């Protein structure tokens, strides 16, 4: 798969301070999460990819387009939803989003049609003729998403899209991002410090710390591999049960308190464990899949700085 974003020793200084330090990575997922504590460089990375900040050294490519030389072409392929409130206060949502569509090059009629579609899509159909300054925080976030989508970009940069949203609004925003992600031909880069948002919406995660790559993780692969790690709590004699599991090809380890930890080989389903336990007169009282959550990955990355999981 061709990479969507390639970072090639990318370093960025702002006001003489190094913000991004030699980032080197290729990302090709449908939805890419940017994680990191405040000040890690997530927003700066997005701004640099959009051409707002110049790279000190190195470069980056989006869809193979160099951010230094082909900024204009690159910007025609992306949509950007900024973190802070960004709108034109005196306008209503239709006029605002239509203006943004026309600035992206859509003819006025097509811009108007797409504006209505985008505003309905994000759930602002009823409120689309209201002045933007009268909008609630959730509505402002949604109108920002509408303006980022209206011209049909191939890559969407979402900077803290759930900032300041109440739980129902957050859930609606996450659902929207899910829907967009499922659409053919569009990729998402989501920057957030909320692990839950990234975990729910992203396939790949890039964790930044102090402008450096702390870790990169393919969540899809992680989820798949986690399903093979199982923790068991049993009652009865484990000896024969362990032998049977070993015969099946499972790697097993006995933990404190008689707990078992096992890795299922490919092709072996969990149901087989219950069958063996039945045959060996062992009761399985608890069975847990390993849950190496994004939080674990994140904390590990923050503690261990060598970039490996």
């Amino acid at each position, binding site marked *: 798969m061709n990479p969507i974003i390639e970072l090639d020793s990318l370093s960025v200084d702002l006001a003489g301070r190094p913000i991004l330090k030699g980032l080197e990575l290729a990302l090709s997922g449908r939805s890419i999460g940017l994680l990191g504590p405040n000040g890690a460089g997530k927003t700066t990375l997005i701004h640099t990819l959009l051409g707002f900040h110049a790279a000190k050294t190195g470069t980056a490519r989006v869809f193979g387009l160099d951010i230094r030389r082909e900024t204009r072409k690159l910007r025609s392929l992306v949509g*950007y939803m900024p973190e*802070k409130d960004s*709108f034109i206060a005196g306008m209503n949502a239709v006029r605002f989003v239509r203006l943004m569509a026309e600035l992206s090059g859509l003819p006025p009629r097509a811009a108007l049609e797409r504006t209505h579609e985008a505003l309905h899509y994000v759930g602002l159909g009823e409120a689309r003729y209201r002045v933007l300054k009268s909008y609630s925080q959730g509505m402002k976030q949604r109108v920002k998403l509408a*303006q980022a989508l209206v011209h049909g970009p191939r890559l969407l940069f979402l900077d803290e899209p759930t900032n300041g949203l109440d739980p129902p609004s957050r859930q609606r925003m996450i659902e929207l991002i899910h829907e967009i992600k499922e659409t053919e031909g569009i990729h998402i880069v989501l920057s957030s410090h909320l692990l839950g948002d990234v975990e729910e919406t992203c396939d790949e995660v890039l964790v930044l710390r102090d402008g450096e790559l702390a870790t990169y993780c393919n969540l899809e692969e992680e989820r798949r591999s986690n399903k093979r790690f199982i923790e068991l709590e049993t009652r009865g004699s484990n000896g024969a049960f362990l032998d049977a599991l070993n015969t099946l090809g499972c790697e097993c380890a006995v933990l404190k308190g008689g707990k078992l930890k096992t890795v299922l080989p490919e092709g072996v389903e969990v149901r087989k464990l219950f069958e063996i336990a039945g045959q060996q007169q062992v009761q399985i009282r608890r069975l847990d899949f390993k849950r190496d959550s994004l939080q674990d990955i994140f904390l590990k990355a923050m503690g261990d700085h060598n970039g490996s999981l």
Partner: protein
Amino acid sequence: MAVYDRHYRPYDGTLLPERWRFLVIPRYAYKDVFASRIFLGFYLLCFLPPIVGSLMIYLHHNLEALQIMGISSAADLIEIGPRFFEWFTWCQSILLYLVVLIVGPSLISTDLADNALPLYLARPFSRPEYLLGKFTVLGLLGASITLIPLSLMYLLQSSLEGGTWLANNLAILVGITLWPIVWIALTGLMALAFSAWMRWRPVATGLLVAVYLVSWGLSSIVNLLFHTRVGDLLGLPKLVVSILSNIFRGGGEGPHVIFSWIVLLLIALACLLLLRSKVKAYEVIR
């Protein structure tokens, strides 16, 4: 796709040519500007002097009308010459400044206050295009109340007076075309620069007023205290009068005209530098 069918779809239609995209900004801005009836009334009032001037030109060449008004000869009326056009150019320049004062200060300040610049600049739309679009708002308004009516007055006079008058008064033609362009550029840049600098419309408006009135007062004080005319270089209205009299009549009081032009050029450069530093998607805080 119908609006009720809530699914995202990419856009695969045609796109407008990039070189004319900056015109989207004035199109939207004019809807807001002319939504105000007060402004519309004032804008229409700006055409009153050129209408009066055109009537005066017409009367000069219509003996019957003069007789009806009880004027025996055209010589009793104001002469249609360089001074006549200079006065109308000055008058329209003042009106243009007032129009810029009303429209200009909100052009960039509202975008900066609402953090809208990242949205403009995240698109295939550059900073120069953004500024060109904003400048065009003032440029077209300015041309409509200076360049176009003054040119029409000149054409009317030329057509009634004949080719000889036209050939003998080419300096007027230069004056009514060159000066409005310079004045539109200068006032437009000043308004945009103050709008970007102050980020708050009332302050930017106040600054524009101050540049005209305070500089006038300051130049008078300097002249009075030091018994000189060098102070005229500090006052925008005096610079305008000096340059206009030089363009139309070849003379001019006060500071040497070249210095007046240099001061205007320096003001324009300062405004461009200010715009360059202030109009950015994000300002880096040091």
